[in-house]
């Protein structure tokens, strides 16, 4: 097994690997990395090869002036079965090399990985410690789309079923699109919701870059719920591998009695199933009333599904780099 930097020629093989890998994720897709580059990140794409591509990692790095920085690897690394330890060693060596050569006057002091695993793997060893922040929600809610629609419907909470039926009786319509023209309509509702709920919202430009990139790669759609011709709710869905992920959403205050959000998610679930995805991921869940996700989680729970926990992000410190930084500051 050897490691080399991936080129544009490797894009198809890399995307196929991350789509079929059991713990693969859109954040390791080629298009997502391109999007992050537009947002100012540098990306470093490495593949593990034997006869063919068998693993690897896209590292993300946000360049800045200070010598303190991190290399990120959300939903990564991707390691070949039975060669995990050796693959990780190759990737760690590469990350450490990268840490030394980054930025005008700085580097990285640690690598932050976040494999989507339910237990700490052996290959992580003692040198990885739990990160103070995650790259993705480490607790989420999954619907199993391999079940029939009637099973999914039956397994919902009664309130969820009631609200979906209510939206149907009111004639709420749903539509899904990957046209750029949908972006401003999506953002208007997203922004309105963020303001109302008091959570951090990304600027409009973030969504322009995200949607433009992922739409062209066939990876994302925006869904709308309409009532009497007016858009009342919206969601942004990411399609990757066996998973459809609900990444962002928003709803208007008007006509909420027609339950447009329920109509929209149910339509999205049906659509994801028809497209062949096996999991509908609500992307973030918590039963803890003090958690920022709690309010959203109560809504998500109405659709049934199971809570899935992953080990979260872990940091590996490059102690030579850290010592170098501390020494410069102590002098």
């Amino acid at each position, binding site marked *: 097994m050897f490691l080399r930097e991936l080129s544009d020629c490797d894009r198809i093989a890399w995307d196929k690997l991350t789509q079929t890998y059991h713990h693969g994720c859109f*954040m390791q897709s080629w298009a997502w990395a*391109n999007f992050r*580059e*537009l947002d*100012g990140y540098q990306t470093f794409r490495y593949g593990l090869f034997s006869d063919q591509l068998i693993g690897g990692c896209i590292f*993300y790095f*946000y360049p*800045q*002036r*200070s*010598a*303190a*920085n*991190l290399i990120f690897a*959300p939903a990564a690394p991707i390691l070949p079965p039975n060669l995990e330890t050796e693959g990780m060693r190759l990737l760690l060596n590469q990350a450490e090399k990268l840490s030394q050569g980054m930025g*005008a006057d700085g580097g990285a*002091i*640690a690598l932050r990985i976040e494999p989507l695993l339910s237990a700490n793997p052996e290959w992580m060893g003692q040198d990885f*410690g*739990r*990160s*103070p*922040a*995650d*790259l993705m*929600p*480490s*607790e989420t809610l999954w619907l199993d789309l391999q079940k029939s629609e009637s099973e999914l419907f039956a397994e919902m909470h009664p309130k969820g079923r009631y609200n979906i039926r209510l939206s149907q009786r009111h004639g709420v319509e749903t539509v899904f699109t990957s046209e750029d*023209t949908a*972006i401003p309509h999506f953002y208007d509702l997203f922004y309105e919701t963020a303001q109302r*709920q008091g959570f*951090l919202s*990304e*600027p*409009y*430009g*973030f*969504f*322009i*870059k995200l949607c433009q990139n992922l739409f062209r790669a066939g990876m994302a759609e925006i869904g709308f719920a309409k009532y009497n011709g007016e858009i009342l709710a919206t969601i942004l869905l990411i399609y990757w591998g066996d998973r459809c992920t609900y990444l962002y959403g928003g709803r208007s205050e008007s006509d909420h009695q027609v339950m447009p959000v329920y109509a929209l998610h149910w339509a999205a679930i049906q659509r994801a199933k028809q497209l062949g995805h096996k999991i509908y991921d609500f*992307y*973030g869940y*918590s039963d*803890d009333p*003090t*958690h*920022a*996700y709690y309010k959203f989680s109560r809504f998500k729970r109405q659709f049934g599904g199971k809570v899935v926990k992953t080990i*979260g992000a872990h*940091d590996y410190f490059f*102690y*030579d780099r*850290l*010592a170098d*930084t*501390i*020494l410069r*500051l*102590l*002098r």
Partner: protein
Amino acid sequence: MATSLFVEQHTDGIAFYINGELQFHSADEAIYHEYLTIPAIALAAKRFPNQLLRVIICGGGDGLAARDILRFPQVNQIDLVDYSQEVIDLGKQDFASFNQGSLVSPKVAIHIQEAFAFLNRLVQEFCTESIQNYKYHAIICDFTYPASVAETQIYALEWFSLLKQVLMPSGIIATNAVSPDRNTLAFWCIYQTMQAAGLAVKPMQLQIPSFLNHDYGNWGFLLASEKAIICSEVASLDLPSNLRELSLETLQTVFIFDAAIAQTRHSVTIHQKDSSQLLFYLLNRLNISHPNTSTVSLENPQINFLDFQDGPTAIATSNHNFQLHDPMSLETLAQSWLNQLESNPDGLLIPAQHHSHTPEISQEWLGRAKQLLNQIDFPRLIAKLLERSQELPHEIAHDLRELQNKIIKFQQSQSLNEQDSHAISTTSESGLSFNLTTAKVIAIVSLTLLVANLAAPDAVFAKGSTSSSGFMSSSDDGSGLGFLGVMMTVGGIVWLINLANDKQK
């Protein structure tokens, strides 16, 4: 570098975005482009009567600035320098009805290049050519909003010095800037940088509805020349007859600023090419609330910059060679923290490092300094530091060796008698004096970890929480005290030793 271009269709026209930043909305772009170009070209026409004018537009690939410059029959040649062929293509095709085909005018020569590189090359060529033939009567800078250190170079001292070299004596420079009310310090930083380059500068501000809708605030421009621009000169400009937004009357109002905003121009440092001064101001906004009125009152005193000639402020130019004063470098931050180590440990701040970083996020992270430190294997780090002890001042190396010995002794005593660990800890606590080097190391490691975590917020941040696991939400580890407050209260060196001990378990 890849660029995101987005044209949004509206019932009343189009809106154009570069990398997510609004460039223009066709419904009100005339406000922006007329104020950016018309005063500068009208001044140049007045200062160079009976001459054919040479103008350079830096940026402006949409062709809208060129359209307004072409309103002046005196303008004979426009060099338009834009790095993006894609934007130029849009300007020639999709935007042709808005820019009236300006980009295919025989007077316009298009150069696909970075403006800095283009002008540098021009200056080099001046060495062998007749300089006067190549200088410009007016320079119009129409750039996108800067979002990185690299992108702030076109507001640096070096940039404005370069502009002066290609500008005719008493020629005019007009540049777009940032919002004077949303990014007050950044706006004055650009202003003072131009002054430091030897230009007499007049600040301008406008309300552009589409910009206000994007929460960009009022928009700022700067009009400059080596030769001072005076009130009577502006009052007597000859303007083209077919303008949509600008008139002599309205022009004179855009130089008026609220006094509270205007006075902050004395508190900024200038921006140089390789520093992050301007980005620092952009990320760390100074919010000055001011009533949005157009009348002068005691509650809302105003200053008209047309009424006087401002000179560069001492503070703005005092750090001309300030390699060590880059406000976003870890060295500067560490120096600031260490200076406060004994004076005001709980008053420490950490400036924003990233455009999606908010003061609330800073505060939350500061309260979690102890949690961050728990990640570090201190015995390993100290051993690494001591491997290179010859690079350290003798006293610091000595203190670090002492610290290492104490940690080793403590660990040994712990392993001898696990049962009595609490008693040993207490004994150690009473027997150890607070060590300043230890405090410095902890402060510097904490700062390094904070900056590293704050510099690159991730997807979970963006979802409205610093952590999906929720443990960041708990407040049982001293959150809200400020990091050094936490450090002092847990007993300095003993805490560090306990950390070391925990790592061994």
